[in-house]
């Protein structure tokens, strides 16, 4: 007999959980979000949360820009400045671009490969909740532990070591307070989230494809998700080791990075960039995937050179493992290492170039509908080209001795991460917004958003290139007059506020569009991939019947056939419209909602807090509390029925 009843409260907790599951399964009310395991809802929550963190990181950026707008400014003191730029970098990389990409993976991958959900829906919910708690934990560091004074006296407690936290600046000797501890634990927690997501999407893509969806019939975005996920699961463990080492040094007196004990700070740099360079491609590959979806749709042409775009993406992912030391040219690695990594860096521009040429080839000869998603994609190509070319210039090692750690580098990676990743992601938001809301985003506001952002972006970051060449080092909290930097900095600050304005335009756009009564059907853009074959917003079960895929761009092929001249002709029998499938999904078994992933996700934050404040007898017990919380969550998760 399975499970004899032990104790009287047992049915009560079980019953309460069951009631939550049943209530959540109705897709109404707050529990249906908290307990959801639906990839679409998790994707939306990922996106919304990341956007909030984007605003936080943006405000940090604006304060930084205000401080630097004029020489000798004192809006913030150097200590506050250091904490602000550290959190700006950390937030934008780990709490904005990565989770925004994760939002798109969640929303799109199952739909694009014809699956009802990801392979492990609860693990997916767990990823999200760990991301949320980890992000809040990291941000909460502002309010804690600056040895100089309290938050309300103007002393921020956030980490102050820069986003790559070079040892030994992060040691207790040089960074008192708890900022770095929050940073390291925060990254560890966020790493759990990313890795869980990475595993999940690899299994989903390898195993959950609809019949006939061979690897080379997958949309490029799915390919890029696969590449990104592999980078995540191989890169994250390395930074995990480094962060543990840092924490052992800080909390328990270890000597990993202690020079006096024979340790070498360069180990940290190696470990960080072994992770950090693949991370750069973790940030950019999803955006490349998005652009590869948008351009064909609005050009009404298939992606030019599909296998080459796929393989160049995989080549980039592979080569990203061989270039990490180009962040370390000036650390004295030696001639051989500098030459080898310099040449490897030069070579990685080849697959990147292939992508750009293929995107141009896609648009060439097409019938290009100029609207916001397309503009963002075209903006992506233009801005990313600048990012790529400046990257090649960094690979010229001797001249990089001049540019290393200057604003030229700052300009370069913002060119890649804002002009590249963020433009691509915004394009994706405009493109797939109707799929998940049933409404188009307003085109006028959208164009305002794009053009202000485009101009603001160039106004902000191109002057930074000049600043770098004029010898302005990065991460300085102020500079004196007479170096010729004032004008360019003022320009950059003006640009930053223009970007801020564009983000406001975007928010207004979302609000205005959500209030609009107009609805769109399943396929507003005449799309090519499977997600457009189903209604907008998609039903919980995605596909009433799992499609059988016969070709690349399968949905397009159900709508059009090519005549002898290669011109598409509409298929006469128009049975493929997704709207026909409504109310067809009765009797499909979906996994039950569950709050247990959320409970399991609460533990790590407790444990981390307990360790950071281990000298405090009231907070120390948080370690066992957190451990038990996570264990209860995981065991309940393992024992709870999957469906009912």
């Amino acid at each position, binding site marked *: 007999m399975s499970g004899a009843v032990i104790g009287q409260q047992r049915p009560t907790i079980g019953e309460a959980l069951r009631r939550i599951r049943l209530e959540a399964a109705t897709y109404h009310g707050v529990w249906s979000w908290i307990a959801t395991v639906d990839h679409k809802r998790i994707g939306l929550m990922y996106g919304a949360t990341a956007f909030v963190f984007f605003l936080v990181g943006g405000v940090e950026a604006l304060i930084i820009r205000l401080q630097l707008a004029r020489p000798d400014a004192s809006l913030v003191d150097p200590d506050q400045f250091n904490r602000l730029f550290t959190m700006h970098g950390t937030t934008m990389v780990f709490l904005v671009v990565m989770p925004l990409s994760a939002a798109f993976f969640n929303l799109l991958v199952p739909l694009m490969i014809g699956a009802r959900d990801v392979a492990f829906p609860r693990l997916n919910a767990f990823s999200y909740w760990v991301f949320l708690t980890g992000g809040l934990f990291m941000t909460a560091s502002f309010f804690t532990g600056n040895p100089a004074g309290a938050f309300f006296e103007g002393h921020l407690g956030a980490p102050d070591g820069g986003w790559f936290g070079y040892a030994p600046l992060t040691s207790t000797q040089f960074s008192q307070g708890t900022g770095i501890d929050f940073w390291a634990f925060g990254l560890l927690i966020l790493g759990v989230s990313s890795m869980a997501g990475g595993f999940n999407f690899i299994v989903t893509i390898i195993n959950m494809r609809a019949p006939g969806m061979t690897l080379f019939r997958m949309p490029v975005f799915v390919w890029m998700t696969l590449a990104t996920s592999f980078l995540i699961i191989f890169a994250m463990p390395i930074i995990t080791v480094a962060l543990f080492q840092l924490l052992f040094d800080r909390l328990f007196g270890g000597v990993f990075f202690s020079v006096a004990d024979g340790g070498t700070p360069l180990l940290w740099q190696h470990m960080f960039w072994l992770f950090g360079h693949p991370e750069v491609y973790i940030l950019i590959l999803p955006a490349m995937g998005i652009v590869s979806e948008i351009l064909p749709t609005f050009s009404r042409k298939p992606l030019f050179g599909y296998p080459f775009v796929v393989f160049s993406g995989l080549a980039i992912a592979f080569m990203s493992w061989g270039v990490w030391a180009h962040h370390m040219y000036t650390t004295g690695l030696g001639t051989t290492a500098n030459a080898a990594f310099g040449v490897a860096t030069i070579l990685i521009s080849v697959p990147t170039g292939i992508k750009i040429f293929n995107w141009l080839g896609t*648009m060439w000869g097409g019938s290009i509908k100029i609207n916001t998603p397309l503009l963002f994609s075209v903006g992506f190509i233009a801005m990313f080209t600048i990012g790529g070319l400046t990257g090649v210039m960094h690979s010229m090692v001797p001249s990089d001795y001049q540019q290393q750690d200057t604003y030229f580098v700052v300009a370069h990676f913002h060119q890649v991460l804002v002009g590249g990743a963020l433009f691509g992601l915004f394009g994706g938001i405009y493109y797939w917004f109707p799929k998940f809301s049933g409404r188009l985003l307003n085109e006028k506001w959208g164009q305002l958003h794009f053009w202000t952002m485009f101009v603001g972006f160039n106004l902000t970051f191109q002057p930074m290139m000049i600043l770098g060449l004029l010898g302005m080092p990065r991460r300085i909290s102020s500079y004196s007059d007479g170096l010729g930097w004032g004008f360019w900095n003022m320009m950059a600050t003006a640009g930053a506020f223009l970007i801020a304005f564009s983000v406001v335009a975007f928010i207004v756009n979302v609000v205005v569009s959500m209030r609009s009564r107009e609805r769109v059907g399943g396929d507003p853009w005449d799309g090519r991939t499977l997600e457009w074959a189903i209604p907008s917003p998609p039903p919980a079960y995605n596909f009433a019947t799992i499609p059988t895929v016969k070709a690349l761009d399968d949905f397009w092929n159900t709508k059009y056939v090519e005549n002898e001249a290669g*011109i598409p002709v509409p298929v006469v029998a128009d049975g493929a419209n997704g709207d026909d499938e409504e109310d067809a999904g009765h009797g499909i078994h979906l996994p039950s909602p569950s709050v247990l992933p959320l409970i399991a996700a609460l533990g790590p934050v407790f444990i981390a807090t307990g360790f950071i404040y281990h000298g405090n007898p009231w907070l120390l017990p948080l370690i066992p509390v957190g451990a038990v919380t996570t264990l209860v969550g995981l065991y309940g998760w393992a024992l709870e029925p999957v469906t009912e």
Partner: protein
Amino acid sequence: MNARRVRTLTGVALAVALATLLAGCGAFGGDQNTFNPGGDVAERQRDLFLLGLWPAIVILMGVLTAVVYIVVRFRRREGDEMPKQVHGNNRLEIAWTIAPLFLLAFIAVPTVDGIIDLGRAADDDALHVRVVAFQWDWRFQYLDAEYADADGNPLTVPDLYIPVDRQIGVELQAGLNAAATDVIHSFWVPKLAGKQDVMPGRTNRMWFNATEAGVYSGQCAEFCGIGHAVMKFTVTAVEPAEFESWAEEQLAGQ
């Protein structure tokens, strides 16, 4: 949005971007302008940068022109037919895989050449200087025997003086004395040479020279804490004779 507006706006944006870039290169003001070198190393680094910059600008202009041209020419007009479905072209793919390799080889050769050249040890007859970086200031020690005082301590000054047209061989030390630990700093005099990190626990070396007399400003380039922005120093390059008398004067005062 009509095509004309797209074209105008894109054109304006590009013009602004290009004008800014060119203006920046043209404005040779500023004490730390890497485009206005005062020594051979910095000049070589600028020349290499320019060697990469011009092809980059040409490629960028090519891509931008292509983007704008394509978007304008192939924009969807009312009553457009469906375009021909082109899936790819293998010859083109091979071409644009191979072509960049030539261009990259063109910059790879001087790159490796430069790495080897700048990476070699300083000449024996160079002026040997130890740069000491610590939170948040600098000291410069003249290691050659003739600049030691009676006790054998090297001449130590807070700002560097060097003779023009003589190679300066630098070794970099973090922390006031070798046993004390400090964070990572980076020694950088933009007009004289690119930077080299000052790593605690190991000694990095570099060399440079000044071909023109003058005062060059330098600054820590690796984030090193609260005082990072004010961790500055100057390098004064003077005629050799003047340098010798300066050194004597300093030694007498030490």
